[in-house]
């Protein structure tokens, strides 16, 4: 991230689309923060796979938090990202290790006091969303996800090989209708997706 200021990164995330993706790559390639996160996870009973997973989830959560306006700009983006990583690992580790070593976090080993507000998606909810979105065809799913991340219709058309922006726009509308129909036919999803 060193070559970009926090304001530039936040601006790119808010713009969405290819700018967001560019920012995401820049964050991902920030070796300093990555090492910091890895060190934290590895020194708190994690393995490299855990650290990589936490690193990716932290970036994802950072992006979602920024897009939802939950990052208020107090402190650096790197610090915020590190805080997310610590909280994520804290949460995950506690779930994993509750039985094996119940006193570990309670003893204050790495627990984060300055918790940034993060958009946590638990595995159960993520799985439910995967199942729901799995009911629409994969191209439709991609159109809707890209649209939700503010990709322009031009970018969506380019990525998914639609001839024009108009075609992409029409496709997005049809896909959203398809999703609404699935929700209409399966009211149980409404319960699972209550915000």
């Amino acid at each position, binding site marked *: 991230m060193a070559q970009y200021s926090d304001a530039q990164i936040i601006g790119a995330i808010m713009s969405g689309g290819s700018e967001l*993706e560019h920012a*995401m*790559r820049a964050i*991902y*390639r920030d070796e300093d923060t990555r090492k910091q996160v890895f060190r934290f996870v590895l020194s708190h009973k994690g393995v490299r796979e855990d650290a*990589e997973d936490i690193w*990716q*989830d932290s*970036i*994802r*959560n950072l*992006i*979602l938090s920024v897009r939802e306006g939950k990052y208020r700009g107090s402190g650096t983006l790197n610090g915020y990202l590190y805080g997310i990583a610590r909280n994520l690992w804290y949460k995950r580790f506690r779930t994993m290790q509750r039985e094996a070593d119940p006193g570990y976090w309670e003893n204050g080993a790495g627990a984060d006091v300055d918790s940034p507000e993060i*958009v946590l*998606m638990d595995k159960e*909810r*993520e799985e439910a*969303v*995967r199942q*729901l*979105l799995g009911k629409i065809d994969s191209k439709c*799913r*991609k159109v*809707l*996800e*890209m*649209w*939700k*991340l503010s990709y322009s219709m031009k970018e969506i058309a380019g990525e998914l090989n639609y001839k024009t922006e108009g075609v992409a726009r029409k496709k997005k*509308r049809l896909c*959203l*209708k398809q*999703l*609404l*129909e699935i*929700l*209409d036919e399966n009211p149980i*999803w*409404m319960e699972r*997706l*209550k*915000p």
Partner: protein
Amino acid sequence: MESPEEFDLIENYLEGLLDAPDANAVESRIASDPVFADKVNKHRAAHVALKAGAGIYLKERLQEESEKKPRNGIVWHTWYWAVAAAVTLLAIIIGFRYTKTFYTDEYIAQYYATPYGAGSSRGEVRQDDFWAPGMQAFNAGEYEMAATLLDKIPLKDSHYLEAQLLLGNAYVLSGNYEKAQAPLKLVAESGDSRFVAAAEWYLLLALVGSHEEADAEILAAKLSSEESHPYRKSATKVARNLRSMFR
């Protein structure tokens, strides 16, 4: 399912694209019209799912990134590894073949073969037909010529044994290992302490050059084991070379 106008109205409302009066109107309708409220809730659930879906999309993109992420400045695609492995293998094969040339019998024999210093008789001018010219040819490095001349020195000549040693040495130096064996064996078995050690040494090289490795190893072991043998160290090296993994 709602009409296209209703669809757009709900979407614009959820995305915050309506101005305040229109948004208020939608909220009033939600409060008073349960069917409409139900439609809005479905759209809202779809948005929640898509927001989570966007997170999944980001995670997938990050995983793609992790698969191609260069840790040392180079993106190591699979084919890079294949090329690197092929180059390394080729280098090993070439290196091995190159190194192997240093351990052939001929190479070992030639590497250690040096002209025998013939002591006080070296360069001595004699009146017979073959000794002096044989020595001259030997000293000039013309080993084949030297061998031809030295081979003609008769048994009765007082320098016969020395001539046989030089003859064997000349054969070794000119690569005629098999021919070298007979004169060298003769000198080695003569018991003449002046020439035995040198004859054994050159015989060892002749055996190596003739690919008679079993006999060469026996002789090398014998010379290596003799503390006072002047060629002990060299014989030890030859024995080691004969057992080299590069052969």
